[in-house]
């Protein structure tokens, strides 16, 4: 089963893209193909899942130098971990630290990150239109991945 893990804070504008995608996914009827996990900003939840075997699709807003709402999908490898880590924010630890810790503890789960370029991440703001419009594309991608995995 694929785990769809969202990072982010729903109170901070486009930082809430992860939880927003999970909310929409929860409405779809995809059987038992994936498990939805809202990790908030908790590094240890992420660490816990990285040390297991089920593949992970991680959704977060990520500053990649793209236009707001643009999506990038990339596999996490040791070679690109520094680049990934700069884009992903977790409270208290960097993604690189968490990933390295998981790797040191044993084999890490395959992990793909779906990053969405934010427009605004200040408190008390909703998702921007640009980021909100990316949700259907993200969901299509996730369902495609879940179907491929299940096949």
């Amino acid at each position, binding site marked *: 089963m694929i785990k769809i893990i969202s990072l982010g804070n729903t109170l901070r504008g486009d930082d809430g893209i992860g939880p927003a995608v999970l909310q929409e996914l929860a409405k779809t009827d995809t059987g038992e193909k994936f498990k939805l996990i809202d990790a908030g900003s908790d590094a*240890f939840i992420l660490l816990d899942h990285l040390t297991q075997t089920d593949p992970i699709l991680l959704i977060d807003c990520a500053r990649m130098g793209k236009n707001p709402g643009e999506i990038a999908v990339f596999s996490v490898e040791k070679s690109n971990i520094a680049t990934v880590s700069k884009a992903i924010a977790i409270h208290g630890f960097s993604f690189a630290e968490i990933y390295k*810790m998981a790797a040191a*503890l044993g084999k890490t789960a395959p992990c793909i990150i779906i990053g969405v370029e934010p427009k605004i991440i200040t408190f008390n703001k909703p998702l921007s239109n640009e980021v909100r419009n990316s949700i259907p594309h993200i969901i299509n991608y996730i369902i495609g991945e879940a179907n491929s995995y299940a096949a």
Partner: protein
Amino acid sequence: MGRDLNINVHHITRVEGHGNIVVDMKNGVLQKAQLDIVEAPRFFEAMLKGRNFQEAAIITSRICGICSLGHQMTSLKATEAALGLEVSDQTVMLRKLLVHGATFQSNVLHALFLAAPDFLKVGSVFPLVNTHKDVVLAALRLKRLANDVGDVISGRAVHPISIVPGGFTMLPSEKDIAALKEKFIKQAIPDVEFILEVLISLAGEIPVFERETEYISIYSEEEYGLYDGKICSSDAGLFPVEDYLNVTNEFVVPHSSSKHAKFNRTSYMVGALARFNNSYALLSPMAKKAAEKIGLKAPNYNPYMNTVAQVVEVVHCIEDSVRLFDILLDKGIKNEKPNQEPTRYGRGIAATEVPRGILFHDYTYNRQGNIVAANCIIPTGQNLANIDDDMKKLVPEVIDEEKEDITMKLEMLVRAYDPCISCSVHLLDVEFVE
């Protein structure tokens, strides 16, 4: 000529929230030794005003992501007290399981990821992944199991969903309870025994320091006080929870955005060591053996041993959870609906032990079932004066050591309390003069 010493640890690491250690000694005379709290107030009590009784626990669980269950539980109990809502024995047992899960998860994480690096002379948990991999894995397994308890019983590990005033909106199945019991017996007990052995091997690294203080915790005649009971002071005995304001006596200090508290002395301690000192006789058999093995006897006056008391409590929570699973499986899970028919509208006060100590929630409801007044007193805030008093005794005792070593001992002291600083700063009454 006495020593001059100036220590300023800006934002101590490996604690939740932001606090600064400040020590100033001139000519051998201690001018200042304190923990400055620099977090902003959270305003949760203000947010609760006007909110319906269905919402209070959902809001207050957001005070913290670490102790969300504790806030939610205490909030529910305060609401139930205010509205005259009785809960069933099954509800109480399920809640106790949740409290056990939250306690052992938090205690494991603090002991191994936040405090243990000091005992092993490393800066964080990350080096331990290479040197103590099995311990880190055991800690992660226990955390995962505690999350499973939250998922199964309350619908979600952080910010639980199905615990509401009067009961549960959804109940676990007996199959789920049996599966949890099996994991506890086959995995949790071996893991905690292993962790205990590791802690015993590190016992020599725990600083030797004593300052007798007043210890305050929940006390129950029937069991180790976590979910419910009276307020117990090691100095003054038992008090009803409704008397909490006479016990806590919060006051403002210039160096802290969180209030301090005191009762029969200039400060008191809450948390695992306070619970251990007050309720040792009610620990589970395995936990008592663990305490004996590691050399922890009640009463213990070394605040650094709070971390050890936490690990003893992990043993207790796991063993007692198995007892509760057995009772639930024996009785069967009854399909009960939450009792949400108020029989009164008024003031309700509740206390629960969260991992860091005794937590109070106090709500007053109007006849529409909306909150008109609220107060929350958080354990970390209650510990702050005690931390300052500990520092004032500790610094002169170690003054001949190197500055780096004194600084480390001070940091370890603060960490030993496992402070949750963000939780502790709540509303200050501010009068604007225009």
